[in-house]
């Protein structure tokens, strides 16, 4: 965990330095990405459960009861200035529980990106917030969905590039804070590891 925080701080510090470098984008620049890759269950939290906090894939007592799954998304963003872009992302995540039922999540998010290093090689950092439609078998609900991503991408031409992205996809399923409603609250988080193809204009 400490290493993770240190890496984040390093990236932020580096980006502040990099921000002084010449930029590629300006207001109105557009960027379109398609991403796909596997997801790893990170944690499942149910405060009323016998095992409230479980980690990783697998069906054991301390595990989330989810398998490794997959995630795909498309996103479109427009730059507000040289560094910040805002737009939308539509995703689809699936994995399986041990009964072989498929769990799916469809995040529809407002996505904000900060691109401190720009040009042929870029490091985008993104935060997405919006709705997340989750379902399994006959059950479904619409919830808050949050994603955080950091990636690296290289542009082979002036417009086309490809890269890798690691993220954190978090779905808090909240029904209320008192009584029976609170008993249904739980949270599930996954780590998507994706490759992406990007077009910029």
């Amino acid at each position, binding site marked *: 965990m400490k290493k993770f925080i240190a890496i984040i701080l390093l990236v932020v510090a580096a980006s502040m330095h990099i921000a002084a470098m010449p930029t590629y984008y300006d207001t109105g620049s557009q960027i379109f990405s398609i991403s796909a890759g596997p997801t790893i269950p990170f944690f499942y939290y149910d405060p009323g459960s016998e095992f409230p906090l479980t980690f990783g894939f697998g069906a054991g007592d301390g595990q989330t009861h989810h398998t490794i799954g997959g995630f795909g998304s498309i996103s479109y963003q427009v730059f507000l200035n040289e560094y910040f872009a805002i737009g939308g992302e539509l995703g689809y995540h699936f994995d399986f529980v041990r009964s072989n039922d498929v769990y799916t999540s469809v995040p529809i998010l407002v996505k904000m990106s900060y691109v401190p290093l720009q040009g042929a090689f870029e490091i985008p950092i993104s935060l997405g917030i919006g709705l997340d439609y989750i379902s399994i078998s006959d059950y479904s609900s619409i919830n808050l969905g949050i994603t955080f991503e950091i990636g690296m991408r290289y542009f082979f031409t002036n417009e086309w590039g490809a890269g890798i992205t690691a993220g954190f996809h978090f779905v808090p399923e*909240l029904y209320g804070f008192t009584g029976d409603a609170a008993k249904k609250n739980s949270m599930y988080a996954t780590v998507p590891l994706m490759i992406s193809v990007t077009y910029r204009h």
Partner: protein
Amino acid sequence: MKKRILLILLAILLIASCNDSSRGVLQWAYQFAEEEENYNQSYLGNDGTNIYLERDWDIYKAYSAPRENANGNEIRYEKILESSRDDEFPFAVQDGLLYMAYKDRTTGLFNFFYIEIPESGEITKEAAEAAKTGNKCTVSGLDNPNITSFAVSRIAVDKIQTLFVLQGASKLDPTNYAVIEINDASLEFTSVVSGTLPANSQMIGDGVLKATSDDPEIDIPDNMNDLYLIEGGKALKIHTFHDSLDYPMGSDGQYAAIASGEICPIDRSYSENGYNGRLRQGELRFDVLDREDNYLTIYKDGNSIVGYLSDNGIYWREDITDDSEVNNKSRPSIVSVSEDADVVPLCFVGKHGTKSHEYLMITQDNGFYIVRPQATGTARLEKIRTGSEYQLSQFL
């Protein structure tokens, strides 16, 4: 801006709250895995040719048929109805009718109906759906038929009786109870025993409930519970005990028993006057309780429970003679059922052949067994040949 974000979050919370499921979707996902782990299977009834059972909410029929490319017969299973995991509960097959309960999500109440099992055996989804409204079963003999929680309990061997919990906010907090049997002539349910449970009580087994009291006039410390036995339409307090009924037995089962009006864990059960080392028939009155609300198939001999199906196999009462003990004991000893310890067999009580005596019986894919008591107080499994229709019909 902050207000807008708060409004959006509130809207998302409201949308999520509209889901009236008893669990959250993520909780269902987690629970499905648990349910898969504990293979669910129970006996529903028979029609003289087929044995009907439920496996993971779906209905199957088991019957004997000639083996393909081999001599003799084998037991085959056919799924005849796929039911909903959430709202439908098959609980009995009687006289060619499959009785089911389903929960109306809009009212939160249980309704009951029957489906005629066709000659072909397979029940279509459409027929099952039509039966919900066309073949409703009413419940008579109750002041308030609002049934919000429902559980099946096979109280009698040859008659399906069903335990309903009425008006309760949840299964864990009922206020009323009723034992209901199916009226063959009218296809209705008739309440044969009903009453009001003490406050804060909990139905935990066949006719047994535990209750905690927060009434200051009743001198029960916080950490004590009362155990009641429903008998003759009344809830009789029979014991006060500390803490809970959680007594360890084996790796995953926790059971307790009522013996001559006292509560004891089943692995420490005893006879009132067993100093000679033998338990006389009917001397003990056991009820096996399962803290997970699972209703166990129980084999009774008179008022005594001598065998039952647990998660991991058949247990049989083994009497222990110990001269150093004032009270001789009995304990559950597991009867080897299968080399595959994970397989929980179907277990039910029935007659063997033309004999009137009833046995605890087991079906597995490779045949039928009866649990035959031994003079030593233990039991052994006796495989019944499945090489002919006649052998299978002996169980029906």
